[in-house]
């Protein structure tokens, strides 16, 4: 019996035909696969998907399905056009689709997720090299693009069933609703998309009252369809941590830093729970900030990344023009990731300091 030397990275293409395969060690592999990791994230998101339909009705399901379908479609389309192997079977586009939809209000028109996923998949993900090479979280970048382009559609939030009417999110109420001139101050220079968003939020926030904390926890509050239920998101997050798909350090340091910074910025203690449970912080910390490609791989880098995102979130919420701030914090830290990795290279075993 004779052997055959093959390139290890191409070895799977070679038929053995009764010859011995010669490759470099190791010769066994774990059962971990990219698909399995992505499937785990989808499993983890399932309670929140079901919750979103329960809280916001069939329109939520419609948006999620359109978003997922268009994400997968655009991935296949752009890969076909660029003559690259089509990799929709890795399931990563499905996750981008779900997360993008989770950031939309239930009242969003059907074409909004299509625009968002086209930008997320084609521009942010595939043009930068596809899965693993995107420098930003595609779903968040998609959301940011939608918010800039169609601010009114992106910030007209509806309450939960049965009375699905336009209303304000708890964070918008805290930001604009508490002062009598909230809307007025926001309207003062309504020329940019950011202020249009602020006006939309602030107008509905006028005179509104904060919901009960238990409703915040369960998710029975106005907001983007996938971000409102801390409970359902945390169930999925626990699954991901147990399965070791995500590193607990990122969400824990993220949320803790947000909390500490809010306290330091003088936010009153009665509002703190609303800040933690609302504004997509749970969704962002557990499902967006943990995106592999756009967060550091180094252990210390992950903590630095999380602390940075936490600080920025608190800063935007207290001093900035937006009521929530999670998306932009994570996107900013995404861009800082290569730099963070450079400065947090682990010291090798037995290596000099």
């Amino acid at each position, binding site marked *: 019996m004779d052997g055959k030397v093959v390139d290890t990275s191409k070895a799977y293409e070679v038929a053995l035909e009764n010859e011995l395969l010669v490759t470099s060690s190791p010769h066994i592999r774990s059962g971990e696969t990219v698909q399995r990791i992505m499937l785990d994230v989808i499993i983890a998101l399932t309670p929140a998907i079901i919750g979103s339909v329960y809280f916001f009705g069939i329109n939520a399901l419609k948006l999620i399905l359109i978003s997922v379908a268009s994400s997968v479609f655009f991935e296949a389309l752009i890969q076909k056009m660029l003559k690259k192997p089509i990799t929709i079977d890795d399931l990563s586009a499905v996750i981008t689709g779900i997360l993008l939809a989770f950031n939309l209000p239930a009242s969003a028109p059907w074409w909004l997720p299509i625009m968002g996923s086209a930008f997320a998949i084609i521009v942010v993900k595939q043009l930068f090299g596809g899965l693993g090479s995107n420098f930003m979280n595609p779903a968040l970048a998609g959301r940011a693009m939608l918010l800039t382009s169609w601010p009114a559609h992106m910030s007209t939030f509806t309450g939960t069933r049965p009375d699905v009417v336009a209303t304000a999110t708890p964070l918008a109420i805290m930001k604009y609703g508490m002062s009598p001139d909230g809307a007025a101050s926001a309207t003062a220079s309504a020329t940019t998309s950011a202020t249009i968003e602020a006006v939309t939020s602030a107008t509905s926030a006028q005179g509104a009252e904060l919901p009960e904390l238990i409703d915040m926890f369960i998710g029975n509050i106005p907001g983007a369809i996938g971000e409102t239920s801390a409970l359902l998101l945390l169930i999925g997050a626990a699954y991901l941590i147990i399965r070791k798909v995500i590193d607990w350090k990122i969400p824990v340091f993220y949320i803790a830093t947000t909390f500490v910074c809010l306290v330091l910025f003088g936010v009153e203690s009665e509002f703190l729970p609303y800040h933690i449970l609302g504004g997509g912080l749970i969704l962002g910390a557990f499902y967006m900030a943990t995106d592999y490609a756009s967060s550091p791989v180094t*252990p210390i880098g992950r903590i630095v990344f999380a602390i940075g995102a936490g600080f920025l979130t608190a800063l935007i919420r207290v001093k900035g023009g937006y009521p929530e701030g999670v998306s932009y914090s994570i996107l900013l830290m995404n861009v800082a990731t290569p730099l963070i990795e450079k400065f947090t*290279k682990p010291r090798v075993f037995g290596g000099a300091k």
Partner: protein
Amino acid sequence: MKLENLTFKGGVNVPHYKELTEGLSIEKAKEPEIVYIPLHQHTGAPCEPIVKVGDSVKVGQKIGQSEAFVSAPVHSSVSGVVKSIENMPTPTAQNVKCVVIESDGKNELHESVKPKGDLENLTQKEILEIIKEAGITGMGGAGFPAHVKLSPPQDKKIDTILINGAECEPYITADHRIMVEYPEKIVFGLKAIMKSVGVDRGIIGIEKNKPDAILAIKEAIKNKPNIQVATLKVKYPQGDEKRLINAILGRVVPSGGLPMDVGTIVCNVSTTKAIAEAVLEGKPLYERVVTVTGKGVKEPKNLLVKIGTPFKDLIEQCGGFAATPGKIISGGPMMGISQYTMDVPIIKGTNAILVMTEEEAKPEKVYPCIKCGKCLEVCPVRLQPLYVGGYAIKKNFDKAEAYNALDCVECGACSYICPAKRPLAESIRLAKREIIAKRKSK
């Protein structure tokens, strides 16, 4: 100090597959008709033959040696006639000068093979000379000549000898069976090593998946207060000597350094047995225990094999192939070397022959790196395998070096865990070769 359940940072849980042979006693392999004894089975200078074609040789007779300090002589494993001296492939190299000996089946011992006297009466120097003359090399890994390892420079103060009984590679049970069946030889060998280095503390480290070996060794060290057993958590690569030192002694061997830099020397179980036999029986290293295993062989076995026996003979003795073989590996699945022919001989460092079926050997499809960071979590050296390997694949070896490629111990944990099935350890290994070659050419 309690030495129980010790471990190191990083590493990965790999399936053991040891159930195939862990309960099987060591059997003597069938006498080979022809042996092919490579003159270079170790790290260091190759040996020159000291026999000619047509010479009669006996078991244990020295047939090759070198003047260099870092080298180890080789001995005949059979009695018979030298048929030829020719270049042949071995499990670790393409072209090695081998002494081909046809056995006469009589197994006559050479007159030099006789007990070397009481350990009590031997001096440090005499023990080292015995070890050197017996041609003993590290039998678990790189095949470093034992007498060199046991002669540290004056300024390196050694306080503890560690015996490596971790055997963390999946499938392999050679050391395990030796500890179960010859515990007193391990203890004697350790005592000889301790005396040769002038140290009075010895520790035998064993992974906890070998409770019978732990029991046997504990029984054998009763009333020997300066020898202890350390039990180790089951985790790969616990048997890497720097991981072993870290787990048992809590010491960190500096990057690029050796165990002696932190006051210790590590010997593998098979090596220790060989040292015991060299002193007790005057027996040179001409046979060793080899685990022949894997789904691809009909009856996996632990065999006592003469050095120079072709792989083919041993696979035949284990009932032949159970299925179409895909890979034949010298060593274990994590660090072993896949062979392109079964005509290679067993050498001093061959602890196993693993036959993987065609099904098992089929490589998996490689996906792009998703930056999950799992390779960082398992790397025992705290490298960033995704970047070192990534630069290596792009042939940017300077960058790979800047990412500490040379610190890689090639354990393969990163490639094992990688969900994208990337050839991380493989490409880092390539980078190491390139970096070292470049340094040498300067």
